């Protein structure tokens, strides 16, 4: 498609000042530029969702490819599926514990490194490393760390306990969640730390000094000056991490594979199990659609509220 550059030039030469936006008013050009990207997003983002919606109204299982429409059969099953709601519960549990922990630890770390100190950049660069690891590597690493006989965690705990302690981190029902949360918090606290460090560095220094002169307590300064100033960043950080935690899969796959039993099965793991080991195709599509619908609504509302879009 030929682009009318020459016409644009004519417009330019006669209209240099005054109509700034007229420079960028070429319709074809701007749509041509977005077309390929949007096409791929529609192809890989939207088309599967529509496909998924269609399949969810059919009744395709491992043994029976039944493409006749069954109405809301699969959606009714959602409400009877205890394991699904347990998986959602597990996901919520991990999120509810890990997210505040990461936020608080990240904040404390950011406070520690807020004031300039020689070598601060090096500390920050090193602390960031867990966050950029592949989550599956993080999970694998902690699996080696937690090993009963050959891992160092048991050894360290035994040392402090003064007697041999056997901790079956990935098998013992009361230890699996702590194990997952330790790994998760270890990997993502640096993420919170980085964002909060940037946010805290941008807090208005003159306000802090004024508060100090007035003899305001630390808590008052924190509540009335620091908190409001870093709130937008905290909101973004919580949103990003919240969404990540909602889809948590890799770390758990490496540590427990959802076990023991289905004790640590999150919504992503459950979807994997019914879709790729039980091949309950239509029902999986319904679950997937439920998750997307649920999250789309939440994300849209949160994004609008937070005014992330300028």
């Amino acid at each position, binding site marked *: 498609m030929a682009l009318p550059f020459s016409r644009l030039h004519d417009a330019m030469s006669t209209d240099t000042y005054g109509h700034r936006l007229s420079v960028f008013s070429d319709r074809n050009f*701007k749509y041509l*530029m977005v077309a390929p990207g949007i096409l791929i997003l529609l192809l890989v983002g939207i088309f599967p969702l529509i496909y998924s919606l269609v399949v969810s109204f059919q009744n395709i299982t491992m043994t029976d490819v039944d493409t006749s429409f069954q109405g809301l059969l699969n959606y009714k099953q959602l409400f009877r599926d205890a394991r699904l709601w347990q998986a959602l519960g597990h996901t919520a549990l991990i999120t509810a514990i890990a997210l505040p922990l990461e936020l608080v630890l990240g904040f404390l770390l950011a406070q520690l490194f807020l004031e300039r100190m020689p070598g601060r950049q090096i500390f*920050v660069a090193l602390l960031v490393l867990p966050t*950029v690891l*592949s989550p599956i590597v993080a999970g694998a690493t902690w699996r080696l760390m937690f090993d009963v006989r050959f891992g160092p965690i048991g050894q360290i705990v035994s040392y402090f306990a003064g007697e041999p302690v056997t901790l079956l981190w990935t098998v013992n029902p009361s230890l699996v969640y702590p194990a997952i949360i330790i790994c998760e918090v270890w990997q993502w606290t640096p993420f919170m730390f980085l964002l909060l460090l940037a946010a805290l560095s941008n807090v208005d220094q003159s306000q802090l000094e004024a508060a100090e002169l007035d003899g305001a307590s630390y808590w008052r300064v924190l509540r009335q000056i620091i908190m409001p100033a870093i709130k937008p960043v905290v909101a973004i950080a919580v949103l990003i991490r919240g969404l990540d935690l909602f889809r948590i899969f*890799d770390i758990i796959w490496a540590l427990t594979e959802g076990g023991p039993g289905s004790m640590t099965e999150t919504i992503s793991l459950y979807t994997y199990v019914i879709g790729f080991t039980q091949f309950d195709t239509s029902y999986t599509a319904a679950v997937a659609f439920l998750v*997307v619908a649920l999250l789309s609504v939440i994300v849209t509302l949160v994004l609008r509220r937070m005014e992330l879009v300028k």
Partner: protein
Amino acid sequence: MTALTRRQRRALTLAMRYLIAVAVTLLFLFPVYWLFMISFKTPEEIFHVPPLWLPGQIQFNNYWVLFKDGDVVAILNSLIVAGTSSVIAMVLGTFCAYSLARFNTGGENLAMWIISQRMIPPMAVVFPIFLIYVHFGMVDTFSGLILLYTAFNLPYVIWMMRGYIADIPLELEESALVDGCTRWQVIWKVVFPMARSGLMATAVFTFVFAWNDFLFALILTRTEVITFPVQLTHYMGGQSNFWAKIAAMSVLGTLPIFVAVTIMQRYLVRGISLGAVKG
């Protein structure tokens, strides 16, 4: 005992901060250290009770085994898939971003929709994609995985580059247009050079996201295009874990990321906060 002077107090505080900083850093790096160290250990050292905190000597046999058995193909696959998809996503995404930033194409609704695409849980999307891929014979192919990672990274690229391009003063482009440049020349000669660091940083993160992904690769590969995270899980079994291979493969798959991110340190905050924090 006399009270400390202000100066002494300050020095003491700094010393305390250093102490805590070193302790925290060691705590956070210990698992990484443990991983690297296992990769240098001999089998006897790995399965020693109690665990040894230092290998007897640095030896690279664990890595050599990966090369000898051909397991490093997984790293190569990761490199091809992550590299190609990043390049495609960067090209298509940057053009989209330019249109969004300069023409406000589609308004805020389009921008919102694009970033919301990023936030949909992969597991929910990958299932129907798997069904479609099976239909078209695209499971376990390079093109299938590359297409998926391109689509997965596009919203990120568009969103980030939209921010970086918006940071470039409009006047520069205007004067280039006035000087007789065509629109493509403006993009090529003004926008790209001005946004170079943003482009680099975004490309690195795009690569890292694709490189680190496990879920898509687990579901959409079988034998031909296994990426390194999937290969890693093949070493984990119920009874026998191939510890040496897990450690060595993890290190091989992690070193490039560490190097890339360390170089891009300055853009890290902006990159991981979806542009919300300009650090």
